[in-house]
């Protein structure tokens, strides 16, 4: 080994420099223009989406105002009955109850922009989903549904060209801190409830440049942080065009994950939903809740905390997307990513 590390490092860099062919300046400028165009398109699409959401919210409010006397909204939450398994399948809609979920911001999944669904990355990286009604769903290790939370205020992108918005972010870090959850400085995620978060956990989100957001969790004796990046809509489901035109066809019955994990969802005709899974160190666990919101291409389910001081309050979230292929197949987004579920009865 030569004595001069500096010289050797410089030689290595020279070899690398000689091995590359610099792109032309025209190529760099073309790339810059494409980037600028993409950002403008994204900003325009976002503006349109916000207008759509606002319009949809107004439409729903107007519709409810004029049809309240014909609706019988459900009250309370019930566990799905096993007697529904194998019964006549019927499309399931939203329960209409949201007493356990305080409203924040615009209503989610309204009107033609129902696909207000925000995607996260690979299953291993974990999710942070922020819905337009302020609900937050985030991954936690060894928890099948996503952990429930709420966003006090909307996260604004640091990107100056984008308006404040909500979105989904995926964890791109591979550090070992993800199991501790997430926290962000600046924007508190409130009401975070999940068995793996324990008590005394404060989570905040701070937008960084270029669509990134840093999440930090502090609580007990630990402080953990992650960096997540915003990504596009849910993958693996119907395209937006199809999603906008489909009618929600989530059928009541028993749904089994297509993989070897054999996670089970039981959907009741009244919007109740329960799950059983083996996710916590191989131990079986279950939960029950309600379809919180239904929209043309899917539904969101919220599960109550089964025990502890938060018993009965929202604790976990599943995002369910109908596939375009079959009414008997759905994609369920939990902490382990997108999983296909097949209806068995």
């Amino acid at each position: 080994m030569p004595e001069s590390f500096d010289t050797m490092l410089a030689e290595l860099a020279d070899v690398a420099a000689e091995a590359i062919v610099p792109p032309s300046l025209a190529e760099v400028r073309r790339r810059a223009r494409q980037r600028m165009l993409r950002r403008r398109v994204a900003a325009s699409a976002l503006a349109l989406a916000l207008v759509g959401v606002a319009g949809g919210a107004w439409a729903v409010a107007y519709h409810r105002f004029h049809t309240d006397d014909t609706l019988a909204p459900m009250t309370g939450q019930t566990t799905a009955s096993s007697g529904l398994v194998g019964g006549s399948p019927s499309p399931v809609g939203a329960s209409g109850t949201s007493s356990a979920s305080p409203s924040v911001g615009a209503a989610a999944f309204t009107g033609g922009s129902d696909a207000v669904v925000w995607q996260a990355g690979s299953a291993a990286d974990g999710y942070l989903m922020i819905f337009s009604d302020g609900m937050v769903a985030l991954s936690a290790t060894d928890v099948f549904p996503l952990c429930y939370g709420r966003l006090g205020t909307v996260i604004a992108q640091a990107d100056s060209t984008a308006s404040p918005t909500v979105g989904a972010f995926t964890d791109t870090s591979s550090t070992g801190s993800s199991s501790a959850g997430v926290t962000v400085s600046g924007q508190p995620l409130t009401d975070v409830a999940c068995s793996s978060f324990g008590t005394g956990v404060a989570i905040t989100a701070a937008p960084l440049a270029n669509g990134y957001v840093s999440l930090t969790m502090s609580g007990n004796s630990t402080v953990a942080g992650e960096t997540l990046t915003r990504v596009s809509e849910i993958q693996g489901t119907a395209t937006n065009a199809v999603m906008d035109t489909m009618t929600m066809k989530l059928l009541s019955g028993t749904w089994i994950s297509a993989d070897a994990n054999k996670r089970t969802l039981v959907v009741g005709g009244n919007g109740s939903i329960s799950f059983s899974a083996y996710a916590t160190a191989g131990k079986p666990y279950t939960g029950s809740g309600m379809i919180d919101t239904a929209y043309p291409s899917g539904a969101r389910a919220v599960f109550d905390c089964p025990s502890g001081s938060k018993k009965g309050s929202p604790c976990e979230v599943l995002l369910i997307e109908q596939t375009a292929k079959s009414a008997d197949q759905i994609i369920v987004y939990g902490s382990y990513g997108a999983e296909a579920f097949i209806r068995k009865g």
Partner: protein
Amino acid sequence: MPDELDFDEFYTAGFRRIVSQIYAMTGNLAEAEDSVQEAFARAWQRWDDVRRYGDPEAWIRTVAYRLSVSAWRKAANRRAAHHRAAAAPELPGLSPDHLTLVSALRQISAEQRRAIVLYHLVGLTIAEIAKETGSPEGTVKSHLNRGRKALAPLVSEFAEVGVGGPRRTQTELAGEW
């Protein structure tokens, strides 16, 4: 409107050099090329601002490094398996000493590698590295010292720094580089 002549000169003079620096920091030449190109594209969009910075090259290097690390992280899990199975392809024309150096650099953390490259290749001072990385000077010194200790068994120049620094596991190494 960006000053194109000024930018053109800056690009021509600096592209290869910055790519080689990012390559030394990340170990992936293709990723380094792409991230540096992206950084230059971003610089061109705001050249009027970037040119006024004290050191536009540091701006490019910082943006490219962050882009490279970010893109690398997205693929880290996928690549980890490949790293365990086979070594990454090396540049043609590398001598055995260079290969040894590349191998040695792969055994230190990304932060240590960045600090060492900025100090020994780019020639920055501790204060300049601290400014570029956004870290306290003490942290930079720590990265340099620990990096040298880790390299000591393989780089004789650092032998006096000491040996016996904590060796990282194969899993950690795969995740870092």
